[in-house]
């Protein structure tokens, strides 16, 4: 035990006293005081940037030759740094051409129907932001392909249903200006959209191409990037990658506009290969490739204007190194468009892509035939994201395999959806930060660590999230005029009621038993007649908290 164990300090009682008497919300006050609106910013409101749906770039297709592959098993944790493999064969062509991957056209297995409510809850948690009450029940037993397509093939622009998001004061959010409003603006979309997979994919791309406003320092540019990610969420990965490569927030974040022919900056060059498309330590590229790729990417500039910040992002040929570059053994006068093409046509890209994408949905690695077929699907569709996602969402491993820990923001959105609450406070931003995930602030360019969401402080923060979700609908045990909560409610009825509050989640049998035991035993000392109603109200509140913060609700 570390020093200090003998005198753990505690002002606990004071806070508990204040809390139980309902007179204090210390944490909320504290954090609200911390919020600051940057009035000097020119933007008063977030401008909605409408990006046209990204069209699939015409990538020349070659017939995919069935080839045997023996992909090595990968764990999800290792997806970002897959194991070393043999050095790739070097394409001989002078211009980058799509590589024929070691892919298989064999059909990818699909889950044996019929689906249950539990299967549909998992789908809604992993491909969206949790079910609304009754949603999973309505989908159970429906043809799986139809259900998946309803997520992966949305028609037209999304519809946001329900009241617009507001700050605590009732004022509209200012996501481009106010600290935390950006987080809440996106959380609102997650809650209200009728195209949850689009938001979930945007969330994945935010982690994949992790960009933090801590380095960009311009919330509007972060929102612009977010819209770019959303527009390309299910399109061509090549096109999305290209859009990200010239995205202003990314150009600032990874020094793209500091990269010119006189002083090449390798930051983006390295990460576009290591984190975005190929993976480290696989023999996919050399240090020479990194420096040559940096030269390939030169030419982007921006101005800095006092009071405005970074602006006027543009490609300036006079800043571009127009001499020959050799990347992956191919020599040419490459530019940034070639840089993206070189990466996605690299023989080790498809395996990186499908393995990494898979890991966001399924905790166990795909088996060899599945991996090969997914690569075939990906390349034959012209780097299509949607077909790969559709295959993953119908794969048996998705439904039969073990649980995933739900990311903090997804947990927050899911509780709000289950309880039917909309964004009427910006507390979610600091609560998200406490829980380990503040949107637009990933910890670094490799994104969040999806394998280590829960510890003693982040679980505590999830308790706080659940508590804030209930703060307008908890049962007041001590209302003026006395409690009217049913004084004869049985423990079974209390548990049913608390489960219904969260849309009837599915708990494991032993968790359910543990909570049921609590519901039964916690009132054994309440014998006086006056205690019956208020104590049952307290029990109801406690049951709701125990359900929402149970280990079962942290996974899906």
């Amino acid at each position: 035990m570390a020093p200090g164990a003998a005198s753990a300090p505690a002002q606990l009682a004071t806070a508990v006293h204040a809390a139980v008497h309902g007179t204090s919300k210390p944490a909320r006050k504290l954090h609200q005081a911390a919020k600051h609106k940057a009035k000097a910013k020119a933007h008063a409101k977030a401008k909605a940037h409408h990006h046209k749906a990204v069209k699939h770039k015409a990538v020349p297709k070659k017939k995919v030759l069935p080839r045997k592959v023996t992909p090595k098993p990968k764990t999800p944790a290792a997806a970002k740094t897959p194991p070393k493999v043999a050095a790739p064969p070097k394409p001989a062509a002078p211009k980058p051409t799509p590589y024929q991957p070691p892919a298989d056209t064999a059909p990818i297995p699909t889950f044996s129907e019929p689906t249950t409510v539990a299967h549909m809850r998992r789908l809604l948690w992993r491909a969206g932001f949790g079910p609304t009450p009754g949603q999973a029940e309505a989908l159970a037993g429906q043809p799986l392909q139809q259900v998946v397509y309803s997520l992966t093939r949305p028609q037209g622009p999304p519809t946001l249903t329900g009241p617009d998001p507001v700050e605590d004061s009732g004022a509209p959010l200012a996501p481009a200006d106010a600290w935390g409003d950006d987080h809440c603006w996106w959380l609102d979309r997650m809650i209200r959209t009728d195209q949850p997979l689009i938001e979930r994919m945007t969330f994945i791309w935010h982690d994949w191409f992790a960009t933090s406003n801590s380095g960009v320092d311009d919330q509007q540019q972060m929102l612009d990037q977010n819209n770019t990610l959303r527009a390309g969420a299910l399109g061509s990965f090549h096109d999305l990658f290209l859009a990200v490569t010239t995205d202003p927030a990314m150009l600032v974040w990874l020094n793209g506009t500091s990269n010119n022919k006189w002083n090449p900056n390798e930051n983006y060059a390295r990460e576009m290969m290591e984190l975005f498309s190929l993976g480290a330590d696989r023999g996919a590229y050399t240090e020479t490739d990194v420096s040559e790729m940096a030269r390939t990417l030169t030419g982007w500039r921006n101005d800095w204007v006092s009071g405005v910040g970074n602006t006027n992002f543009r490609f300036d040929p006079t800043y571009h190194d127009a001499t020959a570059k050799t990347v992956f053994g191919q020599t040419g006068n490459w530019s940034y468009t070639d840089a993206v093409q070189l990466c996605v046509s690299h023989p080790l890209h498809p395996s990186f892509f499908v393995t990494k994408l898979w890991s966001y949905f399924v905790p166990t690695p795909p088996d060899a035939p599945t991996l090969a077929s997914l690569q075939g699907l990906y390349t034959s569709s012209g780097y299509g994201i949607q077909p790969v996602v559709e295959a993953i969402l119908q794969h048996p491993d998705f439904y039969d395999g073990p649980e995933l820990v739900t990311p903090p923001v997804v947990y927050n959105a899911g509780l709000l959806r289950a309880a039917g609450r909309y964004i009427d406070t910006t507390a979610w931003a600091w609560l998200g930060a406490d829980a380990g995930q503040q949107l637009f602030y990933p910890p670094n360019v490799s994104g969040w660590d999806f394998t280590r969401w829960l510890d003693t402080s982040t679980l505590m923060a999830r308790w706080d999230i659940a508590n804030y979700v209930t703060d307008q609908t908890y049962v007041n045990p001590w209302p003026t005029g006395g409690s009217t909560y049913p004084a004869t409610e049985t423990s079974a009825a209390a548990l049913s009621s608390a489960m219904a509050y969260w849309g009837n989640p599915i708990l494991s049998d032993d968790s359910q038993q543990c909570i049921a035991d609590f519901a039964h035993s916690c009132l054994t000392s309440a014998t006086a007649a006056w205690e019956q109603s208020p104590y049952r109200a307290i029990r109801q509140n406690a049951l709701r908290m125990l359900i929402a913060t149970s280990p079962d609700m942290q996974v899906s």
Partner: protein
Amino acid sequence: MPDSCSCRDFNRSQLLHRGVARAGQGLPSIEPGMPTPAGTGLNRRSFLLRSTGAMLSVYGASMLGPRHFLEGITEASAAAPNQPVLVSIFMEGGWDAMSVLAPVGDPLYAAMRPVVGLAPGSGPIFTEDDRLMWNPAATGLATLHDEGKVTTFPAIGYDPPDESHFTSRHYWEVGQLDTSVSSGWMGRFLDATGTQNNPLQGLSLDSSLSPALATTSVPVAAVSSPAAYSLWAYGVDSPITAEAIATFGQLGSLSAPSPAYAQARTAALNTSLVLNQMAGFVAANGTATNYNAPVPYPTAGGDFPGQLAALAAMLADNLPITCASLTGVGSFDTHSGETTALTTNLGQTVDAVLAFQRDLEARGLADRVLIQLWSEFGRHPQDNGSGTDHGAAGTAFLIGTQASGVMVGEFPGLAALDVNENLVNTSDFRAMYCSLLEQWFSTDASLVLPDAASYSRPTLLKS
């Protein structure tokens, strides 16, 4: 909180500082020419400091993980019993030096302070200059001064003085008259002498980091109220709370069919273990806390007495703290209603500091701890009919058994004011910093203050 009068400038400053600390990142200047607050650019990360059951927010050092820090803290703890400690306590808003040590013996005092003036004889005389009288609310300081444990700066400041809360506070925090500097003076000291794996070396007893502790290379930390580590929920009350929390823990010890389940169960179980650990420090009546303090702390003063008690407990546990920062009780920006506000805030602050000093003495820690009380400026000598407006030279104190007990500079008198009719300074805060660095921390001041050579070195410690 009797903070009846906060000027707009002050509110902005506070907001900006807090905003930066909370966001951990560069907020824009809110007015042209306003300095970027120190602390900008540090990333904040939280983890649980297991030994105290308290939440730590760690700033800087983004590459290191919590486990790394715990190792570093454990390592550094071995050396802690011999290390000097500076506890810096900031009086927010610019405390009225002329009401802390009132120049009741100055012939101009009564005329300049018709409303907020103190009556001669109403408080203890300052034994080093009988023109000055301690505010009765600061009797605790008089007591420690009489014991030779208080080094007084009766008129400390800098030239040219700046009357903006924000700017002046920033100067004090960074140790330079430079609005563009973003690391604090204690932060740079820790950069020069600290380690990469001990965030406790610079510790704010607050929810956010003090800008004076902002570093550029080594980690530092803020520890929120230990009370933050608790499970409470709306409408969950006795007699059910305890059993509900127990159930929360029981859910953590059930079977886990997958790694994800195991992570969730383990987190719940560990959370309940920490809660249980802390429960032992809550007094039996459930309303008081217990830091094993050998002396009583005052109950008035919000979180401040408890923060000092916690700090003493941490130091007693040999946690490797080098620089700690706290903020005194309430606001000292007494533009109106000064008498009431100042008496309350000064009194509660001093009473808690006296208890802290007694605590350190009782625990045998007093010889290695120096307490610094400071504020961004003093206030205007002429009162405004209800309070006092922003001024120039103010007062600061160094408290500890090792403090010289001899004042630095003298009270300049009210006859010779500056062009803005403010008190002139007779000591410079940067000279105080230089002497603290060299005499207390045995560190070359030029490593911390680039212009250290240009300042005198007042004697701060007993020889």
